[in-house]
Each structure stands twice: as structure tokens, then as C-alpha cells.
């Protein structure tokens, strides 16, 4: 059993772990990537804000001299402390501004940018990225006075380290996420597989030990418990069918023997040497016995056919009309028996095979007529209860002992004391089969419990009334 389950388990296991860790890692990766992008944007925004502040400050400065002084201070601080600010002051035609004696540390080019970026206008509303001597700068230009232009910016290279650190951290986090995902997937898969394997082992065990065992169902009622419940229900049904089958086989064997015995005896006698030629009466008797046998076979075949599904030939039916017709059919015989068939018929619409439903009602009536004492009455009722159509036949006969009720509908079952009566014992089995084919329920109840003649209330009903709105 293990060897058979192993390859499947591996593949499901691997797929589960892979899927869970992949999805987890993708999720975390996407989140971190987004964080990285947002932070990158945030840094640029921050620098752009600083540049705007600088430009506003420089705009307020009056006169070239003052501008140079401030710029010189900023450049000096940049050289000593650093901070990533870049400046370039030029005349508008591109030449360096006039030299001044009190500017210190800055020679021919006033600023720390190698040249005015190509194509950059003299005045801009928003900063932009440019390359300068291998550095990436975020710069904005402005004019000052009549003939000067000033480039104010920040060196992004200074931030590159921070960015790299951030990226490394995020990548490490992603890698960690893959590990966590794999572990999580492993744990979930193991938990699921543990329970799945329990069911698997149980099914394998059923194959070996028979239908007696049942799966434990925990109170938490999760999907696995539901699965266990379904499997148990299926096993109950299979066990019940197997039991019915066994009983039916025994009954069939027994019931077949009854008509076969006289046939065998007669044929045996006729085949003796010197036996008299068979007369007409003898042959007629043989034919009758064979007829009975055939009737039994036919009935059994019929029940299986109907059970296998006679629903396809269905149409709208009112059980009240159908019951009235069927009662009319049986009434002459009932009157001959001194029994009155009373009707209480309310509309009971449903969909079904009318021929089969008529047979079901007929079988219930003939059954009631068989057990009803003379000078009594049987009651035929139809109607709708809670949207579900029903038909029921009530007699006042001996009823069915409580313990026999579940077995009555089984094929060929007849209570021992009624074996002498005619019929193949198939009546209620037919009704049960027809009920099943229509999704209806057959109930057999004592009509007057405790009474000397409790009677039988045989009721066919549609549990819910999904079809009752049909007409």
C-alpha cells in the first residue's frame, strides 16, 4: 500500500511546498520591490525640495557680490564637511564670471561642476537628472541679475551607498521570505498529508479487513472531517446494500425452491420408465408452476430496472388525479371483498413517471386490501405538506411489527405468517424502488399505535417540494 501511495504523495508534497514558498516569496519580493521604488522616489523628492529651497534662497540675494559670497561659503562647507551640494555660476554666454579677488579656493570655474550640462536652459522650473564627470546630478538652473546663470543641484552618488544598502537588505529579506515560505509550505503540506494519509491508510485497510470499520470524525467539522463523514456514509450505504443483497439472494434461493420442487417431482415421475404419458392437467400444472417462477424473475428484474432510474419518462402529474383513477380501478375488487375505499384527495402536483406512480399507488392499495379485515375501510389521501406532495394509504389491519418495518421494503421479504398469501412479496419493494427513482420517501407507520389492529399507514412523500411550483 505504501509503495503505491508514495509517488503520488511526493509529487503532491513537492508541488504544495513549491507553490506555497513561491507564492510567498513572490508576494514578499513584490512588496519589498515596491518599498525600494517608493524610497528611491522619496529620496529624489527630498533632494528636489532642498534644491528648490536653495533656489528660493539664491533668488532673494541681491547683487553678484553677495551671491558669490554665499556661494563661496557653501562651497567651502561642501569641501570641508561634504553634503552633496553642487553649484556652478556662469555668465549667460557660458564664460566664467569675472574673477574677484575675495573669492577663495575657486579658480577659473566658479563652482564644483565641471561644465554647464549640454542643452540645459538657463532657467528651469523643476530639477532634472544630468551626468557630470561620472556623477549623476539632480540639478535646476536659474538666472541671476542681468547676465548670470546659476546651476543648483545635489549629487545623487552620495545616496548610492544608501540605496545599495537598502537593496541588499531588501534582497536578503526576499531570500528569507523564500525560506520562510518553504518552511510554511512544508508545515501546511505535512499537516494536510498527515490527515490525508490517515484516510488513505484507512481505505487501504478497508480493502483488506472489510466494511466494518469507520473513520473517526472530530468535532471541529473541517473539510477533512466532512470527507471522513462522506466516506463513512458511503460505507454505510455499501454495507447496507451488501446486506440487502445477501438477504435478497437468500430469499430468492428460498422462493425459487418452492415452485421448483413440484416441477422437479412431476418431471421426475414422468421420466420414470413405464410412466404414464403426461395428461393435459399435469402439463397445465407444470406450466402454472413455471409461470410463477417466471413472474418472480420478471418482478426482480423490474425492481432493478426501476431502481436503476425510471425518471426519464417524467411529466407533470397530480397525485390526486392519479390516486382517484387508481382507486376507481381497485374499487370493484374492494367491494367484492366488502371493503370501502375512502378518498381524501387534495391537489399534489409533482413531476414523475405517471405509469410508475400509478403502479406505486396500486401496490399500496392492493397491499392494504390484502390485510384489511372485511367490512372495514381503507383511506386514500393525497395532498401537499410543506410544499412536498404526498400520497398515503391507511388500512386498519394487523399492521407491521416495529422490528420488521425496515425489512419490509427489501426485495421478496414477506413476514413468515403471510407466506401462504399470494403475491410475490414484491409489492412494497416495487413501491420503494419507484419512490427511490422519484427521490421520494416511503414511510411505513402504525396508524393507531397500541391498538389491537394498529393498521398500517404507508406514505410516499417528496421530502422538500422543489417541483411543487411546477404547476
Amino acid at each position, binding site marked *: 500500500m505504501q509503495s503505491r501511495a508514495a509517488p503520488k504523495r511526493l509529487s503532491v508534497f513537492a508541488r504544495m511546498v513549491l507553490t506555497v514558498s513561491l507564492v510567498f516569496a513572490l508576494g514578499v519580493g513584490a512588496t519589498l520591490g515596491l518599498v525600494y521604488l517608493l524610497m528611491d522616489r522619496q529620496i529624489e523628492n527630498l533632494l528636489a525640495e532642498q534644491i528648490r529651497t536653495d533656489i528660493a534662497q539664491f533668488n532673494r540675494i541681491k547683487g553678484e557680490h553677495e551671491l558669490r559670497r554665499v556661494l563661496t561659503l557653501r562651497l567651502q562647507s561642501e569641501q570641508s564637511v561634504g553634503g552633496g551640494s553642487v553649484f556652478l555660476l556662469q555668465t549667460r554666454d557660458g564664460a566664467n564670471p569675472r574673477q574677484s579677488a575675495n573669492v577663495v579656493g575657486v579658480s577659473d570655474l566658479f563652482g564644483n561642476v565641471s561644465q554647464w550640462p549640454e542643452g540645459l536652459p538657463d532657467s528651469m522650473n523643476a530639477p532634472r537628472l544630468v551626468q557630470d564627470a561620472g556623477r549623476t546630478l539632480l540639478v535646476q538652473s536659474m538666472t541671476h541679475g542681468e547676465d548670470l546663470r546659476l546651476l543648483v543641484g545635489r549629487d545623487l552618488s552620495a545616496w548610492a551607498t544608501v540605496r545599495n544598502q537598502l537593496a541588499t537588505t531588501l534582497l536578503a529579506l526576499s531570500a528569507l521570505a523564500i525560506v520562510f515560505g518553504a518552511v510554511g509550505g512544508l508545515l501546511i503540506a505535512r499537516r494536510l498529508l498527515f490527515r490525508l494519509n490517515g484516510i488513505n491508510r484507512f481505505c487501504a485497510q478497508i480493502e483488506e479487513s472489510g466494511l466494518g470499520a469507520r473513520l473517526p470524525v472530530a468535532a471541529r467539522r473541517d473539510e477533512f472531517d466532512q470527507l471522513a463523514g462522506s466516506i463513512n456514509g458511503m460505507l454505510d450505504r455499501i454495507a447496507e446494500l451488501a446486506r440487502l443483497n445477501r438477504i435478497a439472494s437468500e430469499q430468492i434461493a428460498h422462493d425459487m425452491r418452492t415452485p421448483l420442487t413440484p416441477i422437479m417431482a412431476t418431471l421426475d415421475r414422468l421420466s420414470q420408465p413405464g410412466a404414464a404419458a403426461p395428461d393435459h392437467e399435469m402439463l397445465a400444472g407444470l406450466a402454472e408452476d413455471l409461470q410463477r417462477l*417466471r*413472474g418472480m424473475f*420478471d*418482478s426482480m*428484474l*423490474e425492481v432493478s*430496472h*426501476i431502481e*436503476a432510474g*425510471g425518471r*426519464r*419518462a417524467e411529466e407533470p402529474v397530480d397525485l390526486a388525479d392519479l390516486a382517484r*383513477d387508481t382507486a*376507481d*380501478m*381497485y374499487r*370493484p*375488487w374492494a367491494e*367484492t371483498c366488502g371493503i370501502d375505499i375512502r378518498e381524501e384527495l387534495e391537489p399534489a402536483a409533482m413531476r414523475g*413517471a*405517471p*405509469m*410508475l406512480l*400509478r*403502479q406505486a399507488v*396500486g*401496490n399500496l*392499495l*392492493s*397491499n392494504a*386490501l*390484502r390485510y384489511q379485515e372485511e367490512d372495514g375501510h381503507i383511506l386514500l389521501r393525497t395532498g401537499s405538506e410543506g410544499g412536498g406532495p404526498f400520497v398515503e394509504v391507511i388500512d386498519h389491519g394487523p399492521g407491521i411489527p416495529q422490528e420488521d418495518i425496515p425489512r419490509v421494503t427489501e426485495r421478496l421479504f414477506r413476514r413468515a405468517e403471510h407466506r401462504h398469501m399470494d*403475491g*410475490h412479496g*414484491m*409489492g412494497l419493494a*416495487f413501491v420503494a424502488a419507484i419512490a427511490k427513482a422519484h427521490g421520494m420517501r416511503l414511510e411505513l407507520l402504525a396508524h393507531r399505535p397500541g391498538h389491537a389492529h394498529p393498521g398500517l399507514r404507508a406514505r410516499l412523500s417528496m421530502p422538500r417540494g422543489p417541483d411543487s411550483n411546477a404547476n
Partner: protein
Amino acid sequence: MRVLLVEDEAGTAEILLAILTGEGWTASHAANGQDGLKMAMAEIYDVVVADRTMPRMDGLSMLQALREAGVVTPTLVLSALGAPEQRVAGLESGADDYLTKPFDAAELVARIRALVRRTRYNAHEKVTIVGDLHIRTDSKTALRAGEPLNLTPKEFQLLLFLARNAGDAVTQRMILENVFDWRAEADPGAPIVPVAISRLRAKLERPALPEILKTVRGKGYRLIDPHAE
């Protein structure tokens, strides 16, 4: 009467042929649906009796092909498949009657007779006359020797069914099926037909008049015209 039997099983065919010729009918035999189709199209038969399950071409396909070719010979389908939807499928493909195996010889013969008759009489005929019996379908009344019979609707239907098959025996199964809308395969669990017949007989027969509703032992019931017999 000329009967075409289409049956693949040799043993069954032999018995059926014996039954058919035993009635004095001329019976031809085809061993499969294809041959059956050819024969039914080439010659004129009064009735076709076809098995349902056969190799090469099954009975229902043969029947469908026959109907599509415009051949309307009344056809009875024999089948081991008796579930209601099987019967419906049989009748839908053009069968005029459907008999579930196994069956009695008498049942088969009675059904063939009724089938041939049914295609001969006019179902809309207003008056059916058998001897001194007059049945009016429009007013649903029946008269015996001019005197009205007080029949229930079911009794009237039963009498009409017997009258339309007058001279021939009809079986209990046929009566259950045609008069009571009962499945031919089902056992009603009570002597429905004998009781109905005896009630009809009580209303129909008069001491002064000849008996016209006969019981045919092992076969069924027969309505006769005493002067024609």
C-alpha cells in the same frame, strides 16, 4: 396474414415461427436488422415482429429506417428491456406495440391481431356494432338489443376495447394496459380484470339472449357476434 419476423436468436426464432404458423399465418424470417429492413421494403406484410437487440442493426434503428422510407407496416417490438423509458424509446422510434420478453404465445398472438385490427378500423368511428351490441363513442353509450346498458366510464372503455377486437381474444395484460393505463409488466396484486369482466358481464348478458362475452381459457376474453360465429 403475412408476418415478417426479425429475430437474431435461432432458438427463439424457431419457437416464434412455430407460434405464428400455428395460427395459420404466413411467416417470413430475417436473422438481423439489415435483412429485415431489406425484406420489409421489398415486400408487403401485414405486420412486422422485430426483436430489439440484434447485431449489425438493432430493431429500433431498423424501424426508424423503415419509417423514414415511408413504410408504415404495423410493427410490434419484442424486448427484454421493459423499463418505462425503454418502452417510450421503442414507441418513439415508430413501434406500434411493445412486448417485454418473456411472454406467452397467446399474448403475442392476441397483440398481433389487435395491432393489425387497429390499423384497419377507423379510431374515429362513431358507432361500433357487434351483433346486437351497439356502441356509440360520441355519447359514450352502449345498447344491447336496443336496451341501454348502464355502464361506468371504465366499463364502457372495456366494452369498447373488447368490441374493437371482436372475435379475437384479448389478454389480461392487454386490458390492463389499454383500459386501465397500467404498465403491462406490473402485477396489479389484485384480480382487477376478472372482477371488471364479471361486472361487465352482469350488465351485458341477458338470460334470454345468447352469451357474447366469453372467457378463453389461458388466453383471455373474447367478445363475439353469436350469429357470425
